[in-house]
């Protein structure tokens, strides 16, 4: 079955807005439950980690180039380098390695 892209967009937008508007209008109380607070605190790290690996390996045309970008970018991120620097180094690594690997 093929789904309509605009229904996807509408549904995602609706959920995004409800998550943000309900606490600001109806709930209006701080979340006190420690488990829920902790869960919400850890969620972004879990989501981004799950979405990053191994998907990053298939992001460029060469898994080897992607893996090298992961190592280079990961090392810089661990040293606390800023987001644009890490992203740029990943791109340059892929570009250079692909031009060697895919043209030989």
């Amino acid at each position, binding site marked *: *079955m093929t*789904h309509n*892209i605009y*229904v*996807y*967009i509408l*549904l*995602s937008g609706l*959920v*995004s*807005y409800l*998550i*943000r*508007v*309900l606490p*600001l*209008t109806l*709930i209006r109380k*701080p979340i006190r439950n*420690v*488990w829920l*607070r*902790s*869960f919400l*605190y*850890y*969620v*972004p*790290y*879990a*989501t*981004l*980690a*799950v*979405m*990053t*690996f*191994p*998907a*990053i390996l298939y*992001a*460029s*045309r060469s898994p080897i180039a*992607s893996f090298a970008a992961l190592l280079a*970018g*990961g090392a810089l*991120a*661990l040293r*606390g*380098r800023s*987001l644009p620097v*890490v*992203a*740029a180094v*990943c*791109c340059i*690594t*892929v*570009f250079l390695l*692909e031009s060697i690997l895919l043209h030989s």
Partner: protein
Amino acid sequence: MTQMKNAFFRGIQDGTPIGLGYAAVSFSLGIAMRNAGMTWYQGFLLSLVNLASAGQYADLQVIAADGAYLEIVLVTLVANARYLLMSTALSQKFSPRTPMRHRFFTAYAVTDELFGLAIHQDGYLNPHYYYGAMSMAVPGWCIGTALGILAGNILPESIVSALSISLYGMFLAIILPPARHDRVIAAVVLCGFALSTLTQYIPFLSTMTAGTKTIILTILIAGCAAWLFPHTEDDHDA
């Protein structure tokens, strides 16, 4: 009236660097959307209604795989769940005398960065300050997305391939620095990498779509971490 204007212009000032940063991130997101076959106006629209990087990337996984409508609802809910925390904190920053309608408008643009601006204001939040910052951040996010998709269609394949990795680089730059100082976050990230890899290559589990995998693993990992290592600090900047 002038006070309202002043607050709005202060918001524009503080929102400008955020808008520029958003344009760079959403450009990368646009490249990923283009690779999934979305047009520039579909990408613009998805960015306009969501205003969320991780959430939109998770949506993209479902869209690319032609997943069920329920899947996009759940994946958006999980990937954006942290906004519940921010919105409840922001709720406390509103003066009881501020009309209700401002809560509805402000809610549209609760993002990590705009929330950070709002929470660091002295005293109650002036909604017009928030609107000023939104007026820079929202167009930056939406136009960046559209430009990313258009650029992906025009640029040579070697450049597009290199740019496709940038979004993942940004994800690394978000999750790895805190992992250095917080062992629980480090464990959460490593579990995320490991379980995501396992589910990708184990024959039975690999039939799971990327969206479903993101939902199940996020709930599992963040749920266990919260149960084993409750995070007690007051995380206003979460």
